[in-house]
């Protein structure tokens, strides 16, 4: 063949042959069986489900820790917990929520499961790396809790400022474990970021040009880029902290030229974009659900996508806004105030576009849409208090008080947890093949929303009445008692809301009505796959004709044919216009990513105790990685036979 191009042809296919193909693809794509098979799995739906369940388990654990804090704070000068225990609990709550729940759930879990389906391919790019990243995330989280249960949980806050977390003021292994947990989670987030970018850049269905990529996928791509650019900040900051603690370096020691603010600059270079990493996926979910339940294309697609990208950029100009009280020059104060206010413009644009979608659409009030409406209420309030903290003089008053605690819970729970529950209700039928109960869904929504507002709204007032953050108790005469008690009561409702959700999941998994492939009549490609998707996702790889692939499909929308189906072959397309340009193979299941993750975990944990563990652990790690990439003889022979070389290379 002279032309290396995809060609549109007419084909007559028999039903029987498509059944045969389905059988064959099932055999080729099936996850390996048995106990060992479980550790070999590499399909994105398998790993994605594990990510979702694991991250949600960490959410519940961190939520219970919050309950412990609410109990302690319900009474002034209480001694239910020792200050040492309280400090561990609030540090664990923040660390687990940020590093083991919010980012893994909103970014890793959702994009691993959904992005390949939404762009119409059969697996995520680099599936073995994907499995590795999951195990690393799991092991990191389990180790953190293991340390916590033997009273060695980190106790320096989720930010672990130096010198408090440094060698002089935190003896023991607590801060080391915190720093290593960061390493675990950043490696796994970075791996998924690369996978998502490559999946979206190269594996999109033919016809899904840049301006037809679903908003959700855009959101995850922007998030992936932010992860790629932001994470190095915390890599460096936590590595320096660990070296100061274990190898006697002096990065943060002012006595010999070190600097305590260096840590804050590096940490917030990551830490501020982190907030957007958490809620950009949330807003992308909102755009998706709003379109489906308003029965129209989302209003202002271009404006929404540009807003996401603008948010991604501006987020990197804001890190100093966490450091207004450190005494920075007034010029940079003004710059960072302006940047902080500017980020309200893309946020506002998105909100106006959603309202326009709702107002011009035919709204269908189902559970996913309820969560989105709840999101509006909570997120807008959080955004408004964001303007208070963007203004330097006002921030100097509310910074590190309960006002800020209220602000970021409104932003993060509003921007991530509400959309997450909406996403669960929305994609549950796709993932499990069964519908959730509407009645229980409505109950959990109202319990959660009311409980949330009772818990967190009074915190605004507490902050303005002078209550600082991260205090394990407060004086009886301060006038903070009643509000704290109201908040603690709100927690109970919040807890019940989550409980009802869990009951709903439990019951629906067993007795929920069987879901069709597209129960909401939605337009995204993921709804073209079966519910739950077969291991090969799509029998016929789709092509795309518009932003909502299923709504905009032509009556005789072509399908993709001509890939080898005796191996896990994929189609690669061009970045801009998604024209087909090549074929490649997804790797088979294997145990090596699991082995590599075990070795890496041993290396990370060992290095807390003896720095030399890094050198020793590097050897088995290298062996595991070689095993991971080493091809089998048949594979090589088969491919050699079939190889078609790229022309004009």
């Amino acid at each position, binding site marked *: 063949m002279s032309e290396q191009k995809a060609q549109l*042809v007419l084909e*007559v296919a028999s039903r029987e042959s498509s059944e045969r193909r389905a059988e064959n693809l099932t055999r080729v794509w099936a996850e390996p069986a048995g106990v060992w098979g479980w550790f070999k799995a590499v399909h994105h739906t398998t790993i994605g489900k594990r990510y979702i369940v694991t991250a949600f388990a960490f959410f519940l654990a961190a939520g219970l820790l919050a309950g412990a804090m609410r109990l302690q704070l319900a009474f002034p000068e209480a001694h239910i917990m020792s200050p040492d225990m309280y400090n561990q609990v609030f540090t664990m709550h923040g660390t687990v929520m940020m590093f083991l729940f919010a980012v893994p759930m909103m970014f890793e879990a959702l994009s691993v499961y959904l992005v390949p389906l939404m762009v119409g391919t059969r697996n995520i790019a680099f599936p073995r790396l994907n499995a590795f990243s999951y195990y690393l995330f799991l092991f990191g989280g389990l180790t953190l809790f293991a340390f916590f249960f033997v009273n060695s949980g980190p106790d320096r806050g989720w930010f672990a400022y130096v010198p408090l977390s440094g060698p002089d003021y935190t003896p023991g292994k607590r801060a080391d474990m915190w720093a290593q947990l960061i390493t675990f989670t950043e490696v796994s987030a970075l791996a998924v970021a690369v996978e998502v970018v490559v999946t979206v850049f190269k594996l999109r269905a033919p016809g899904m040009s840049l301006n037809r990529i679903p908003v959700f996928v855009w959101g995850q791509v922007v998030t992936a880029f932010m992860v790629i650019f932001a994470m190095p900040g915390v890599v460096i900051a936590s590595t320096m902290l660990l070296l100061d603690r274990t190898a006697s370096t002096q990065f943060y020691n002012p006595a010999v030229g070190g600097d305590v603010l260096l840590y804050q600059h590096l940490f917030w270079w990551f830490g501020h974009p982190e907030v957007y990493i958490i809620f950009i996926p949330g807003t992308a979910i909102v755009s998706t659900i709003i379109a489906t339940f308003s029965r129209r294309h989302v209003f202002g697609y271009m404006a929404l996508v540009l807003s996401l990208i603008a948010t991604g950029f501006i987020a990197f100009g804001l890190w100093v806004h966490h450091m207004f009280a450190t005494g920075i020059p007034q010029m940079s104060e003004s710059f960072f105030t302006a940047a902080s206010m500017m980020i309200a413009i893309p946020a506002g644009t998105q909100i106006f576009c959603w309202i326009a979608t709702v107002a011009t659409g035919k709204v269908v009030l189902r559970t996913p849409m309820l969560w989105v409406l709840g999101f509006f209420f909570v997120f807008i309030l959080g955004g408004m208090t964001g303007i208070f903290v963007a203004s330097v003089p006002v921030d100097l008053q509310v910074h590190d008080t309960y006002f800020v605690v209220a602000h970021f819970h409104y932003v993060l729970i509003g921007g991530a947890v509400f959309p997450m529950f909406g996403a669960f209700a929305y994609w549950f039928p796709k993932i499990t093949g069964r519908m959730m109960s509407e009645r229980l869904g409505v109950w959990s929504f109202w319990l959660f929303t009311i409980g949330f507002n009772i818990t967190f709204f009074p915190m605004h007032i507490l902050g303005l009445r002078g209550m600082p953050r991260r205090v394990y108790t407060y004086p009886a005469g301060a006038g903070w008692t009643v509000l704290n008690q109201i908040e603690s009561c709100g927690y109970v409702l919040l807890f019940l809301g989550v409980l009802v959700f869990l009951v709903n999941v439990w019951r629906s998994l067993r007795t929920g009505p069987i879901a069709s492939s597209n129960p909401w009549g939605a337009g995204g490609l993921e709804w073209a796959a079966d519910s739950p998707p077969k291991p090969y996702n799509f029998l016929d790889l789709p092509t795309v004709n518009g932003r909502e692939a299923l709504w905009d499909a032509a009556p005789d929308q072509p399908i993709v044919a001509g890939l080898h189906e005796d191996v896990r072959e994929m189609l690669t397309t061009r970045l801009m216009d998604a024209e087909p340009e090549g074929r490649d193979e997804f790797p088979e299941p294997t145990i090596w990513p699991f082995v590599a993750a075990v070795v890496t975990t041993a290396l990370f944990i060992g290095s807390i105790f003896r720095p030399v563990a890094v050198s020793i652990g590097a050897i088995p790690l290298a062996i595991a990685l070689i095993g991971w990439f080493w091809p089998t003889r048949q594979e090589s022979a088969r491919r050699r036979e079939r190889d078609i070389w790229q022309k004009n290379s």
Partner: protein
Amino acid sequence: MAEEFVKPRRVLDVSALPDVTFASRSITWWGTLGMMVIEAGVFALALASYLYLHSRSATWPPGVLPPDLLWGTINTAIFVLSMIPTEWYRRRARQGDTSSVQIGLVLACIIGVATLLVRYKEMTHLNTDWTQSAYGSIVWLIMGLHITHLLTDWVESVVLTVLFFSPHIEGKRFVDAEENASYWYFVVITWIPIYFIIYWAPRWLRS
């Protein structure tokens, strides 16, 4: 033949598309690029930290001599010159020229060993250690980061060389060889700013 036919439909036949693709048409290339961007970010922030610590310090370097120039400069020369054979085997890899790529990879392994040996000499001529001051710590951190890259790239080259002398030669291996060359470029290019910061900044910014 009881096959039940359905009506003909339009399909997009992709069977003619190549499966040995290079550069931006290969997903491995994109993956490697992603890794490079991340690592470049780490390097950039490490160098920024160096300059930040300098701005917070009254004397620089604090009470020690700057690193000796000799070995670092030799290594820089090796890095720059190594780009010639690297570019050669990278181009041959695209043509599927097995023997040239074999030679190129063996050369890459040898160059890797040479730079590591010179690097060892460099480390003994830094004139500071990491426990002395923040200056010493950041110098060692930056050097350590770069050594990690030298080591991983060397291991990768060795593994790939072994594959190229095994029955595993196939189109994908040539794509890997090209990636290996690109990654070496990354290691070299990141070294240039590091060289200037580690060796020349203490001389230029001396106070």
